[in-house]
Protein backbone atom coordinates (compact mmCIF):
# COMPACT_ATOMS: atom_id res chain seq x y z
CA UNK A 1 0.00 0.00 0.00
CA UNK A 2 1.31 3.47 -0.76
CA UNK A 3 0.15 7.07 -0.56
CA UNK A 4 -0.87 9.11 -3.61
CA UNK A 5 -1.52 12.82 -3.81
CA UNK A 6 -4.37 14.30 -5.84
CA UNK A 7 -2.61 17.37 -7.17
CA UNK A 8 -5.94 18.99 -8.02
CA UNK A 9 -6.71 19.13 -4.31
CA UNK A 10 -3.25 19.83 -2.92
CA UNK A 11 -3.02 23.38 -1.57
CA UNK A 12 0.72 23.14 -0.86
CA UNK A 13 0.30 23.45 2.88
CA UNK A 14 3.31 21.20 3.35
CA UNK A 15 2.15 19.38 6.47
CA UNK A 16 2.81 16.10 4.67
CA UNK A 17 6.43 17.17 4.25
CA UNK A 18 6.78 17.83 7.99
CA UNK A 19 5.32 14.51 9.09
CA UNK A 20 6.60 11.96 6.59
CA UNK A 21 9.28 9.85 8.28
CA UNK A 22 11.02 9.02 4.98
CA UNK A 23 10.73 12.20 2.93
CA UNK A 24 8.61 10.39 0.36
CA UNK A 25 6.24 13.34 0.10
CA UNK A 26 8.88 15.89 -0.90
CA UNK A 27 9.28 15.44 -4.65
CA UNK A 28 9.45 17.76 -7.63
CA UNK A 29 6.70 15.96 -9.57
CA UNK A 30 3.91 16.67 -7.12
CA UNK A 31 3.53 12.92 -6.67
CA UNK A 32 4.60 10.88 -3.66
CA UNK A 33 7.62 8.62 -4.13
CA UNK A 34 6.02 5.19 -3.80
CA UNK A 35 9.36 3.45 -3.41
CA UNK A 36 10.00 5.34 -0.16
CA UNK A 37 6.49 5.17 1.21
CA UNK A 38 6.09 2.91 4.26
CA UNK A 39 3.40 0.32 3.70
CA UNK A 40 0.14 1.53 5.27
CA UNK A 41 1.74 4.30 7.41
CA UNK A 42 -0.83 7.02 6.47
CA UNK A 43 0.52 9.77 8.75
CA UNK A 44 0.51 12.27 5.87
CA UNK A 45 -3.09 11.37 5.05
CA UNK A 46 -4.28 12.31 8.51
CA UNK A 47 -2.14 15.46 8.50
CA UNK A 48 -3.18 16.91 5.17
CA UNK A 49 -5.72 19.69 5.75
CA UNK A 50 -6.97 19.48 2.17
CA UNK A 51 -7.71 15.76 2.10
CA UNK A 52 -5.47 15.50 -0.92
CA UNK A 53 -3.74 12.21 -0.06
CA UNK A 54 -5.08 8.68 -0.09
CA UNK A 55 -3.73 5.15 -0.01
CA UNK A 56 -3.76 2.75 -2.93
CA UNK A 57 -3.53 -0.94 -2.16
CA UNK A 58 -0.84 -2.98 -3.88
CA UNK A 59 -3.26 -5.87 -4.36
CA UNK A 60 -6.97 -5.81 -5.10
CA UNK A 61 -9.74 -8.24 -4.25
CA UNK A 62 -11.28 -10.45 -6.90
CA UNK A 63 -13.83 -8.43 -8.81
CA UNK A 64 -17.57 -8.88 -8.76
CA UNK A 65 -18.84 -11.63 -10.94
CA UNK A 66 -20.81 -10.68 -14.02
CA UNK A 67 -23.31 -13.12 -15.45
CA UNK A 68 -23.00 -14.00 -19.11
CA UNK A 69 -26.39 -12.55 -19.92
CA UNK A 70 -25.50 -9.25 -18.26
CA UNK A 71 -22.22 -9.16 -20.21
CA UNK A 72 -23.98 -9.92 -23.45
CA UNK A 73 -26.66 -7.30 -23.10
CA UNK A 74 -24.22 -4.59 -22.01
CA UNK A 75 -21.84 -5.38 -24.83
CA UNK A 76 -24.58 -5.30 -27.43
CA UNK A 77 -25.58 -1.82 -26.26
CA UNK A 78 -21.92 -0.85 -26.25
CA UNK A 79 -21.63 -1.95 -29.86
CA UNK A 80 -24.50 0.37 -30.77
CA UNK A 81 -22.74 3.26 -29.00
CA UNK A 82 -19.50 2.46 -30.83
CA UNK A 83 -21.38 2.61 -34.14
CA UNK A 84 -22.89 5.97 -33.23
CA UNK A 85 -19.47 7.22 -32.21
CA UNK A 86 -18.00 6.09 -35.54
CA UNK A 87 -20.70 7.78 -37.57
CA UNK A 88 -20.22 10.96 -35.54
CA UNK A 89 -16.46 10.78 -36.12
CA UNK A 90 -17.09 10.38 -39.84
CA UNK A 91 -19.36 13.44 -39.93
CA UNK A 92 -16.88 15.44 -37.87
CA UNK A 93 -14.12 14.61 -40.30
CA UNK A 94 -16.04 15.20 -43.51
CA UNK A 95 -18.19 18.27 -42.95
CA UNK A 96 -17.16 21.85 -43.79
CA UNK A 97 -19.80 23.29 -41.51
CA UNK A 98 -18.09 24.31 -38.24
CA UNK A 99 -21.32 24.06 -36.24
CA UNK A 100 -22.06 20.52 -37.45
CA UNK A 101 -18.41 19.64 -36.83
CA UNK A 102 -18.70 20.82 -33.26
CA UNK A 103 -21.95 18.92 -32.68
CA UNK A 104 -20.51 15.77 -34.25
CA UNK A 105 -17.43 16.00 -32.03
CA UNK A 106 -19.66 16.21 -28.98
CA UNK A 107 -21.71 13.19 -30.13
CA UNK A 108 -18.50 11.29 -30.71
CA UNK A 109 -17.13 11.97 -27.22
CA UNK A 110 -20.43 11.29 -25.52
CA UNK A 111 -21.02 7.96 -27.27
CA UNK A 112 -17.47 6.85 -26.62
CA UNK A 113 -17.94 7.52 -22.90
CA UNK A 114 -21.17 5.52 -22.84
CA UNK A 115 -19.49 2.64 -24.68
CA UNK A 116 -16.57 2.70 -22.24
CA UNK A 117 -18.89 2.63 -19.26
CA UNK A 118 -20.97 -0.28 -20.58
CA UNK A 119 -17.88 -2.33 -21.39
CA UNK A 120 -16.27 -1.57 -18.07
CA UNK A 121 -19.41 -2.80 -16.29
CA UNK A 122 -19.29 -6.04 -18.22
CA UNK A 123 -16.35 -7.19 -16.11
CA UNK A 124 -13.45 -4.92 -16.99
CA UNK A 125 -13.55 -2.35 -14.19
CA UNK A 126 -10.13 -2.90 -12.67
CA UNK A 127 -7.02 -2.89 -14.92
CA UNK A 128 -5.33 -5.42 -12.63
CA UNK A 129 -8.23 -7.88 -12.76
CA UNK A 130 -8.21 -11.46 -13.99
CA UNK A 131 -10.58 -10.57 -16.82
CA UNK A 132 -8.25 -7.89 -18.13
CA UNK A 133 -5.35 -10.30 -17.89
CA UNK A 134 -7.32 -12.88 -19.90
CA UNK A 135 -8.24 -10.20 -22.41
CA UNK A 136 -4.61 -9.18 -22.93
CA UNK A 137 -3.51 -12.80 -23.29
CA UNK A 138 -6.23 -13.45 -25.81
CA UNK A 139 -4.95 -10.53 -27.88
CA UNK A 140 -1.57 -12.26 -28.00
CA UNK A 141 -3.02 -15.70 -28.72
CA UNK A 142 -5.38 -14.77 -31.55
CA UNK A 143 -4.97 -13.16 -34.95
CA UNK A 144 -4.76 -9.39 -34.74
CA UNK A 145 -4.87 -6.77 -37.49
CA UNK A 146 -1.72 -5.67 -39.26
CA UNK A 147 0.65 -3.54 -37.27
CA UNK A 148 -0.55 -4.96 -33.93
CA UNK A 149 1.76 -3.59 -31.22
CA UNK A 150 2.53 -6.92 -29.59
CA UNK A 151 5.26 -5.46 -27.40
CA UNK A 152 2.76 -3.04 -25.82
CA UNK A 153 0.57 -5.92 -24.66
CA UNK A 154 3.57 -7.90 -23.42
CA UNK A 155 4.84 -4.94 -21.46
CA UNK A 156 1.40 -4.42 -19.91
CA UNK A 157 1.22 -8.05 -18.83
CA UNK A 158 4.68 -7.68 -17.33
CA UNK A 159 4.10 -4.52 -15.29
CA UNK A 160 0.46 -4.60 -14.21
CA UNK A 161 1.32 -6.57 -11.03
CA UNK A 162 -1.22 -9.16 -12.00
CA UNK A 163 0.40 -11.78 -9.80
CA UNK A 164 -0.81 -9.83 -6.78
CA UNK A 165 -4.39 -10.49 -7.58
CA UNK A 166 -6.62 -12.85 -5.72
CA UNK A 167 -7.20 -15.44 -8.43
CA UNK A 168 -10.60 -16.70 -7.35
CA UNK A 169 -12.51 -14.38 -9.67
Amino acid sequence: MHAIRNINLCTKDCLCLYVCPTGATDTETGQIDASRCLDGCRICIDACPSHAISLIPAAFPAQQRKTDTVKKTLLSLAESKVKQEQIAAYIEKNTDNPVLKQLAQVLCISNQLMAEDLIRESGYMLPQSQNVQDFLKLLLDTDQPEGFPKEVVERLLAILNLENLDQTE
Partner: protein
Amino acid sequence: MRKYTCSICGYVYDEAIGDPARGIAPGTKWEDVPEDWHCPLCGATKADFAEDKINNKSATPELSIVENEANSMSELSFGEVSALCSNLSKGCAKQYRLEEAELFNQLAEFYKAKSSIAGAGQLKDISTLGERDLASGYVQANLIAADASDRGALRALVWGEKVTRILNSILRRYEKQQDTLLENKHLYVCDICGFVYIGDKLPDICPVCKVPNEKITEIKRR
Protein backbone atom coordinates in the same frame (compact mmCIF):
# COMPACT_ATOMS: atom_id res chain seq x y z
CA MET B 1 -52.44 21.25 -10.30
CA ARG B 2 -50.16 18.61 -11.76
CA LYS B 3 -46.45 17.95 -11.66
CA TYR B 4 -44.12 16.87 -14.44
CA THR B 5 -40.69 15.36 -13.92
CA CYS B 6 -37.71 15.69 -16.23
CA SER B 7 -36.74 12.16 -17.23
CA ILE B 8 -33.13 13.20 -17.47
CA CYS B 9 -32.30 15.08 -14.31
CA GLY B 10 -35.34 14.70 -12.11
CA TYR B 11 -36.25 18.41 -12.05
CA VAL B 12 -39.94 18.79 -11.25
CA TYR B 13 -42.16 21.29 -13.02
CA ASP B 14 -45.00 22.05 -10.63
CA GLU B 15 -47.93 23.86 -12.27
CA ALA B 16 -48.65 25.55 -8.95
CA ILE B 17 -45.16 27.08 -8.88
CA GLY B 18 -44.43 27.56 -12.58
CA ASP B 19 -40.95 28.76 -13.53
CA PRO B 20 -41.00 32.50 -12.76
CA ALA B 21 -37.28 32.91 -13.48
CA ARG B 22 -38.07 32.10 -17.12
CA GLY B 23 -41.33 33.99 -17.31
CA ILE B 24 -43.68 31.11 -16.54
CA ALA B 25 -46.15 32.41 -13.94
CA PRO B 26 -47.32 30.23 -11.04
CA GLY B 27 -50.44 28.34 -12.06
CA THR B 28 -49.39 27.90 -15.69
CA LYS B 29 -50.76 24.63 -17.03
CA TRP B 30 -48.23 22.28 -18.60
CA GLU B 31 -49.90 22.53 -22.00
CA ASP B 32 -49.55 26.33 -21.82
CA VAL B 33 -45.82 26.21 -21.16
CA PRO B 34 -44.27 27.28 -24.48
CA GLU B 35 -42.77 24.52 -26.64
CA ASP B 36 -39.34 26.16 -26.59
CA TRP B 37 -39.17 26.08 -22.79
CA HIS B 38 -36.32 23.90 -21.53
CA CYS B 39 -35.54 22.13 -18.31
CA PRO B 40 -33.73 24.79 -16.24
CA LEU B 41 -31.29 22.22 -14.88
CA CYS B 42 -30.28 20.12 -17.84
CA GLY B 43 -31.74 21.75 -20.95
CA ALA B 44 -34.10 18.88 -21.84
CA THR B 45 -37.18 19.67 -23.93
CA LYS B 46 -40.82 19.40 -22.84
CA ALA B 47 -41.03 16.04 -24.62
CA ASP B 48 -38.54 14.66 -22.10
CA PHE B 49 -40.93 15.33 -19.20
CA ALA B 50 -43.48 12.88 -17.88
CA GLU B 51 -46.48 13.54 -15.65
CA ASP B 52 -46.24 12.29 -12.08
CA LYS B 53 -49.04 9.83 -11.54
CA ILE B 54 -49.97 8.55 -8.12
CA ASN B 55 -50.30 5.09 -9.56
CA ASN B 56 -47.89 4.88 -12.41
CA LYS B 57 -46.98 1.23 -12.23
CA SER B 58 -46.51 0.16 -15.80
CA ALA B 59 -46.80 -3.45 -16.75
CA THR B 60 -43.39 -5.05 -16.54
CA PRO B 61 -42.49 -6.71 -19.82
CA GLU B 62 -41.79 -10.41 -19.64
CA LEU B 63 -38.19 -11.36 -19.36
CA SER B 64 -37.20 -14.00 -21.83
CA ILE B 65 -33.56 -14.55 -22.40
CA VAL B 66 -31.93 -17.30 -24.32
CA GLU B 67 -28.80 -18.37 -22.48
CA ASN B 68 -25.96 -18.33 -24.93
CA GLU B 69 -22.53 -19.73 -24.53
CA ALA B 70 -20.20 -17.27 -22.91
CA ASN B 71 -17.74 -16.19 -25.48
CA SER B 72 -18.07 -12.48 -25.08
CA MET B 73 -14.44 -11.44 -25.14
CA SER B 74 -13.69 -12.83 -28.59
CA GLU B 75 -16.90 -11.18 -29.79
CA LEU B 76 -15.65 -7.69 -29.03
CA SER B 77 -15.42 -5.57 -32.15
CA PHE B 78 -12.32 -3.45 -32.77
CA GLY B 79 -14.33 -0.40 -31.72
CA GLU B 80 -15.23 -2.08 -28.45
CA VAL B 81 -11.66 -3.18 -27.84
CA SER B 82 -10.63 0.42 -28.37
CA ALA B 83 -13.20 1.70 -25.87
CA LEU B 84 -12.16 -1.00 -23.39
CA CYS B 85 -8.50 -0.01 -23.65
CA SER B 86 -9.23 3.67 -23.40
CA ASN B 87 -11.22 3.06 -20.22
CA LEU B 88 -8.47 0.87 -18.78
CA SER B 89 -6.08 3.71 -19.52
CA LYS B 90 -8.21 5.98 -17.36
CA GLY B 91 -8.34 3.31 -14.67
CA CYS B 92 -4.54 3.25 -14.59
CA ALA B 93 -4.26 7.04 -14.58
CA LYS B 94 -6.54 7.14 -11.52
CA GLN B 95 -4.02 4.97 -9.71
CA TYR B 96 -1.17 7.14 -11.03
CA ARG B 97 0.14 4.21 -13.06
CA LEU B 98 1.20 6.42 -15.90
CA GLU B 99 3.20 3.96 -17.96
CA GLU B 100 0.30 1.50 -18.01
CA ALA B 101 -2.10 4.34 -18.85
CA GLU B 102 0.03 5.31 -21.82
CA LEU B 103 0.31 1.71 -23.06
CA PHE B 104 -3.45 1.14 -22.89
CA ASN B 105 -3.86 4.41 -24.71
CA GLN B 106 -1.64 3.19 -27.53
CA LEU B 107 -3.76 0.05 -27.84
CA ALA B 108 -6.94 2.14 -27.84
CA GLU B 109 -5.57 4.30 -30.68
CA PHE B 110 -4.50 1.26 -32.67
CA TYR B 111 -7.93 -0.41 -32.54
CA LYS B 112 -9.73 2.86 -33.11
CA ALA B 113 -7.81 3.37 -36.35
CA LYS B 114 -8.70 -0.20 -37.39
CA SER B 115 -12.40 0.31 -36.67
CA SER B 116 -13.00 3.73 -38.21
CA ILE B 117 -13.50 2.40 -41.74
CA ALA B 118 -17.05 1.29 -40.94
CA GLY B 119 -18.27 4.72 -39.92
CA ALA B 120 -19.95 6.39 -42.92
CA GLY B 121 -23.37 7.85 -42.15
CA GLN B 122 -25.41 10.90 -41.21
CA LEU B 123 -26.96 12.40 -38.09
CA LYS B 124 -30.16 10.61 -39.04
CA ASP B 125 -28.41 7.25 -38.65
CA ILE B 126 -27.19 8.21 -35.19
CA SER B 127 -30.65 9.13 -34.00
CA THR B 128 -32.11 5.94 -35.47
CA LEU B 129 -29.61 3.87 -33.48
CA GLY B 130 -30.27 5.96 -30.37
CA GLU B 131 -34.04 5.46 -30.73
CA ARG B 132 -33.49 1.74 -31.04
CA ASP B 133 -31.35 1.71 -27.89
CA LEU B 134 -34.13 3.49 -26.01
CA ALA B 135 -36.95 1.38 -27.44
CA SER B 136 -35.35 -2.02 -26.90
CA GLY B 137 -31.67 -2.10 -25.88
CA TYR B 138 -32.06 -0.37 -22.51
CA VAL B 139 -35.40 -2.02 -21.78
CA GLN B 140 -33.93 -5.48 -22.23
CA ALA B 141 -30.67 -4.66 -20.45
CA ASN B 142 -32.45 -3.14 -17.45
CA LEU B 143 -34.51 -6.29 -16.98
CA ILE B 144 -31.49 -8.53 -17.23
CA ALA B 145 -29.38 -6.43 -14.86
CA ALA B 146 -32.24 -6.21 -12.35
CA ASP B 147 -32.75 -9.95 -12.58
CA ALA B 148 -29.05 -10.48 -11.79
CA SER B 149 -29.16 -7.76 -9.06
CA ASP B 150 -26.16 -6.21 -10.78
CA ARG B 151 -25.91 -2.84 -9.07
CA GLY B 152 -23.10 -1.49 -11.23
CA ALA B 153 -24.70 -2.52 -14.50
CA LEU B 154 -27.98 -0.87 -13.45
CA ARG B 155 -26.09 2.31 -12.62
CA ALA B 156 -24.39 2.39 -16.03
CA LEU B 157 -27.73 1.77 -17.72
CA VAL B 158 -29.47 4.59 -15.85
CA TRP B 159 -26.76 7.08 -16.78
CA GLY B 160 -26.51 5.87 -20.37
CA GLU B 161 -30.24 5.94 -20.92
CA LYS B 162 -30.48 9.52 -19.67
CA VAL B 163 -27.58 10.65 -21.83
CA THR B 164 -29.05 8.87 -24.86
CA ARG B 165 -32.35 10.70 -24.29
CA ILE B 166 -30.53 14.02 -24.15
CA LEU B 167 -28.56 13.31 -27.33
CA ASN B 168 -31.69 12.31 -29.18
CA SER B 169 -33.54 15.36 -27.97
CA ILE B 170 -30.64 17.54 -29.19
CA LEU B 171 -30.65 15.76 -32.56
CA ARG B 172 -34.39 16.34 -32.90
CA ARG B 173 -33.97 20.02 -32.12
CA TYR B 174 -31.02 20.32 -34.48
CA GLU B 175 -33.04 18.78 -37.27
CA LYS B 176 -35.64 21.54 -36.89
CA GLN B 177 -33.51 24.55 -36.00
CA GLN B 178 -30.25 23.57 -37.74
CA ASP B 179 -27.26 25.74 -36.82
CA THR B 180 -29.37 28.32 -34.98
CA LEU B 181 -29.72 25.75 -32.17
CA LEU B 182 -26.09 26.35 -31.26
CA GLU B 183 -25.86 30.01 -32.24
CA ASN B 184 -24.23 32.09 -29.49
CA LYS B 185 -24.33 29.08 -27.20
CA HIS B 186 -21.60 27.07 -25.55
CA LEU B 187 -21.46 23.32 -25.84
CA TYR B 188 -20.21 21.07 -23.02
CA VAL B 189 -19.70 17.35 -22.41
CA CYS B 190 -19.37 15.68 -19.01
CA ASP B 191 -16.03 13.84 -18.91
CA ILE B 192 -17.52 11.10 -16.77
CA CYS B 193 -20.92 10.16 -18.21
CA GLY B 194 -21.18 11.96 -21.57
CA PHE B 195 -24.00 14.32 -20.53
CA VAL B 196 -24.25 17.17 -23.06
CA TYR B 197 -25.22 20.72 -22.11
CA ILE B 198 -26.05 23.55 -24.51
CA GLY B 199 -26.16 26.98 -22.94
CA ASP B 200 -24.28 29.47 -20.81
CA LYS B 201 -25.02 28.55 -17.24
CA LEU B 202 -23.48 25.20 -16.51
CA PRO B 203 -25.21 23.40 -13.61
CA ASP B 204 -22.99 23.07 -10.47
CA ILE B 205 -22.99 19.31 -10.77
CA CYS B 206 -23.72 17.05 -13.71
CA PRO B 207 -27.46 16.30 -13.58
CA VAL B 208 -26.80 12.71 -14.68
CA CYS B 209 -23.72 11.49 -12.77
CA LYS B 210 -23.47 14.29 -10.16
CA VAL B 211 -19.80 15.06 -10.73
CA PRO B 212 -18.81 18.69 -9.93
CA ASN B 213 -18.79 20.83 -13.05
CA GLU B 214 -15.01 21.20 -13.30
CA LYS B 215 -15.27 17.79 -14.95
CA ILE B 216 -17.68 19.08 -17.59
CA THR B 217 -15.60 20.25 -20.55
CA GLU B 218 -16.47 22.87 -23.12
CA ILE B 219 -16.07 21.77 -26.73
CA LYS B 220 -15.18 24.82 -28.78
CA ARG B 221 -16.06 25.44 -32.40
CA ARG B 222 -13.06 25.18 -34.70
